[in-house]
C-alpha cells in the first residue's frame, strides 16, 4: 500500500508543470489516505531521496531532487 502510494505521489509530481508542491497538493494523489498517514508516506519519500524539501522560511514545499539542486540554487538558477 505504502509503496503504491509513493509511486502515485511521484507520478503526480512528475505530471505537473510546476516544480514546487504543497503537502496538500501531494495528498491529491492519494485522496483515500488520511493526512496524518500521508505525511509519513511523504516523509519516507524524502528520506529515500525521492523528494526534497524547499522552504521559504514560513512555508515548506516539496520538489523532485532533479529540480532542486543545491549547486543550481547557489548559482541563482532555482
Amino acid at each position, binding site marked *: 500500500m505504502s509503496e503504491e502510494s509513493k509511486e502515485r505521489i511521484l507520478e503526480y509530481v512528475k505530471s505537473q508543470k510546476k516544480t514546487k508542491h504543497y503537502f496538500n497538493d501531494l495528498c491529491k494523489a492519494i485522496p483515500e489516505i488520511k493526512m496524518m498517514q500521508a505525511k509519513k508516506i511523504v516523509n519516507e519519500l*524524502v528520506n529515500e531521496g525521492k523528494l526534497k524539501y524547499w522552504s521559504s522560511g*514560513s512555508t515548506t514545499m516539496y520538489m523532485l531532487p532533479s529540480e532542486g539542486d543545491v549547486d543550481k540554487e547557489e548559482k541563482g538558477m532555482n
Partner: protein
Amino acid sequence: MALKHATPMLDELEKGPWPSFVTDVKRLAAKGNKMCEDWLGLMELSFKDKETHWKHGGIVGVLGYGGGVIGRYADRPDLFPGVAHFHTVRVNQPSAKYYTTDVLRKICDLWDARGSGLTNMHGSTGDIVLLGTTTDQLEPLFYDLTHDLGMDLGGSGSNMRTPEGCLGKSRCEWSCIDTQEIIHDITMEYQDALHRPMFPYKFKFKASGCPCDCVAAIARSDCSIIGTWRDKIRIDQEAVRAYVGGELSPHAGAGGTEKRAFDIKEEVLDLCPTRCMDWDGKNLKIWDEDCTRCMHCIRVMPRALRPGVDTGASILVGAKAPILEGAQLSSLVIPFMKMEPPFGEFKEFVEKMWDWWMEQGKNRERLGETIQRLTLREFLKVCDLSADPRMVSTPRYNPYIFYDPADVPGGWEHDEKAFRERHQA
C-alpha cells in the same frame, strides 16, 4: 580601521541613545569578519535602492529535518561575495530561556567558527537565531550543536514551531501552571511535527502562567495555553487595609516606592471590567463568579490579592498576524483544564484539532483562518467540545446565541411569507 564599504545611510541608525545593531556588526567587520563586512555593504545598497537584495528560501537544510534552516542568498554576490550565502539557523531555546553562561559562550564560539558570529537572541518565536552561514557549514554545525551542546534545531516552514512559554513558576508567584514543564513536554512529544513539515502552514504553541500573558500567547499563537484558576481570589484583608492606609506601595512600587494616598475605588474598583468588587471601608468583597481573571486588582495590590489555588489553564485557538486575513486574537475553546503531566487531556484535544486542520486547511491557511472560514461551531464539533457562555464576549447582553441550526426548530431558514400571514402589521 576603515571598513570595506561606506555606509552613510546605515550610520544614521547609530545615532540616538539606543543600542545599535549597526555598531555591533561594524565591530565584527573591523576585526576582519568578511561576512559582516559585506553584510554592511549589502544592507546599504538595499537602503539606497529601497528594495531588498536578499533572495528568500531554498532547499538547504540538514539530513532528516524539514525545518530549522532557512536558505538566504544575496542577489548581488558579484559585489558582496561574503554574503552570497547567508543561511539562518533556528536553535530551539531551553524552556523559559534559562542558560548557563558556559552554554552561551559555547554557542557564540560555535557560531564564530561556523557562521557570521551574528545572533538574534531571541527571535519572536523564541528561538536562538543564528544569522548567516554557508551550506557546507550546516551539517558540521548541526553535529556540534547536538553532540557538544545537547541542543536541537527549532521549527520553521509548515512545521509546528518551537513552543514558547513565560518564566512560569520558576520566578513568578502568579503562575497558575508550570509553563516550563508544559513547553518542554510539548516539544518532546511532538518532535516529529517540529522537525518534519505536515501542516498547511505554521503552527505555534505558547504558554503563559497567568492571564497577564507575558509571552502574548493570546495574540501570537495558534494554540494559547493561559494559566487561570477556578476558585476564589485569595484576599489578605489586613494587607488591603495597609494599601488603603498608604503603608504599602501599589503596583509593588513600580510607579514609585514613596508613600502616597491610595484611592482603592478609583485605582481598583472602578477599573474592574465586571465591577465585581466592593470596599466597605474595612473589607474588600469580590464576587468571584463575575470575575473574568483580568488580573488588574492583583497587579495593583500583589501583597493583598493572589490567584486562587485550584489552578489550571484556559485553552484558546487561532491567533495570528495579518497575512491572508487580518490579525486575529485567539478564541476561547476550553475555559478550564487541569494542566498536569502527562497532559493527556490536552494532547487529545491537540490531535483532534490537528487532524481537522490538516484535512480542511488550505495551503498557507492558519488554523484561525480555517476556523473563520468553516465556523467555530464546526471546530468545536470536531474537537468534541461544547459551546459555553464563557466563549461569548457579552453573553448576558445577548444570551440568545445558537451555535447549530440543528438546535433551532426550522434551522436558520425563515419563511417570510408565512411570517407575514401570521403577523399582518
